[in-house]
């Protein structure tokens, strides 16, 4: 990394933020029931995240930005699996990735992320600096109810978006700045708090649709997504090659290359980032520049080398219902298996009556028996 990059790197430290939903009173309420800022719900800066996938574990690193006193902010992030831990992220990992992939450092907005502001099971709670983290498991209604009862403001598209995620993974992370702790810790407006979520999952994905929550369909969602994987990942949707056109829209593949030794060395030297492999990682940088109305999917990743990212993980296909009330007729399957078991028993009895005791029902019976055990 050049000296120029180092200097720019230092100046970027407080600049990043993640999707934040206003949770409390923040401004004049212009509409009935208003507990939100005059412009509605969410006012996001550019979002930056790192999803590192190594040995079956997704490491999701992002940052929350404090919006200042008098405003309570929080955010809900859907996760692809149950995290084993949520800890503070590296102090400058996201900034270092930006510099690696965007040498001419662009001007970043430093304004604070003014956010607009059943029973879900609480799986994990953590305090990270002035952030209160809660990992929830539940359906869309349960999680939405929990969020509402805990002071989160949910915009009108929230029910559908929560359902979109809950169908695939009913795990959500809610983060909320604790105003008292922020004051005690002298957290400044605009100061970011990085978090690191460790998620064992066979199917990593990065939530993108959640970034459009509460936005008008024509608003543009901007985000930087960095991936560090063992091999070059296949992604769904497939990111576009850059055309050089100013303001190119969509998911744009800005970088796809072996992660440099200097990058990996730098990242590993950041606080709490020693878990990263020393080398042999692939760096992918996808710039998201898409209208909210078109951002109806996530980013599925296949880093196995087989090149088959999961359409369900991308949110482009719906999962097969697993519950008895779902579309798949499990009741009928159980009935068929039960009939099979009766046939099996009858067959065995018949077989036992045979001269050698092994004919008739033997092979059939074995198969049916396994099916019955599985169904049970």
């Amino acid at each position: 990394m050049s000296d120029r990059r180092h200097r720019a790197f230092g100046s970027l430290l407080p600049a990043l933020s993640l999707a934040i939903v206003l949770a409390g009173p923040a401004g004049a309420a212009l509409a009935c029931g208003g507990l939100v800022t005059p412009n509605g719900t969410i006012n996001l800066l550019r979002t930056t995240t790192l999803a590192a996938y190594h040995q079956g574990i997704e490491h999701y690193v992002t940052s929350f930005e404090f919006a200042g006193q008098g405003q309570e902010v929080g955010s809900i992030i859907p996760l692809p699996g149950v995290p084993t831990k949520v800890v503070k992220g590296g102090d400058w990992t996201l900034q270092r990735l930006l510099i690696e992939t965007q040498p001419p450092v662009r001007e970043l907005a430093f304004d604070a992320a003014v956010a607009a502001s059943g029973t879900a099971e609480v799986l994990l709670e953590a305090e990270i600096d002035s952030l209160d983290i809660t990992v929830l498991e539940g359906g869309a209604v349960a999680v939405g109810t929990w969020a509402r009862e805990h002071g989160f403001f949910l915009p009108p598209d929230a029910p559908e978006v929560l359902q979109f995620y809950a169908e695939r993974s009913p795990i959500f992370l809610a983060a909320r700045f604790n105003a008292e702790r922020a004051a005690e810790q002298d957290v400044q407006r605009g100061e970011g708090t990085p978090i690191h979520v460790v998620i064992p999952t066979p199917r990593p994905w990065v939530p993108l649709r959640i970034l459009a929550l509460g936005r008008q369909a024509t608003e543009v969602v901007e985000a930087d997504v960095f991936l560090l994987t063992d091999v070059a990942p296949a992604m769904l949707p497939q990111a576009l090659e850059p055309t050089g056109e100013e303001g190119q829209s969509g998911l744009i593949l800005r970088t796809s290359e072996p992660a440099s030794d200097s990058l990996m060395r730098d990242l590993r030297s950041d606080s709490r980032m020693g878990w990263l492999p020393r080398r042999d990682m692939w760096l992918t940088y996808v710039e998201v520049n898409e209208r909210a109305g078109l951002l109806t999917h996530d980013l599925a990743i296949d880093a196995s080398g087989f090149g088959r990212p999961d359409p369900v993980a991308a949110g482009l296909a719906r999962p097969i219902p697993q519950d008895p009330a779902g579309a798949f007729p499990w009741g009928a399957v159980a009935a068929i298996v039960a009939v099979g078991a009766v046939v099996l028993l009858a067959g065995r009895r018949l077989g036992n009556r045979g001269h050698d005791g092994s004919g008739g029902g033997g092979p059939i019976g074995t198969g049916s028996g396994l099916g019955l055990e599985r169904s049970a």
Partner: protein
Amino acid sequence: MTIALAGSIGVGAMGLAEDPAGAESVRTVHIRIHFSRFDPGNVMIAPGETARFVIENSDPIDHEFIVGDSRLQLAHERGTEAHHAPRPGEISVPAGATRSTTVTFPVDLGATLFGCHLPGHYAYGMVGTIEVS
């Protein structure tokens, strides 16, 4: 007794009325709110008919059901009431709850609207039409 629904938030009377106690017949109209949309989004009412709207909110967020023309809808969109006390044609419907309101539609009304004015909801598409014909 008939109570005129005279612009409770400063808008002129819409001509709707609460159901008289002795109304001969009241038709029940079920409307479900799901994913912040009304279903059905278009309701047919006979002139002079009294309708009891039963609003089922299946969402985990609060909604409203406000009956009235575009002027009244605009007034609510600019209003500041966090919640609506039950008034004919104006109710809050909490998350997961079912509420009802009864309205008699004048013979000469023509058409009117129903909508939700919690922040961003109307713009999101939470508006429906009532055709009185």
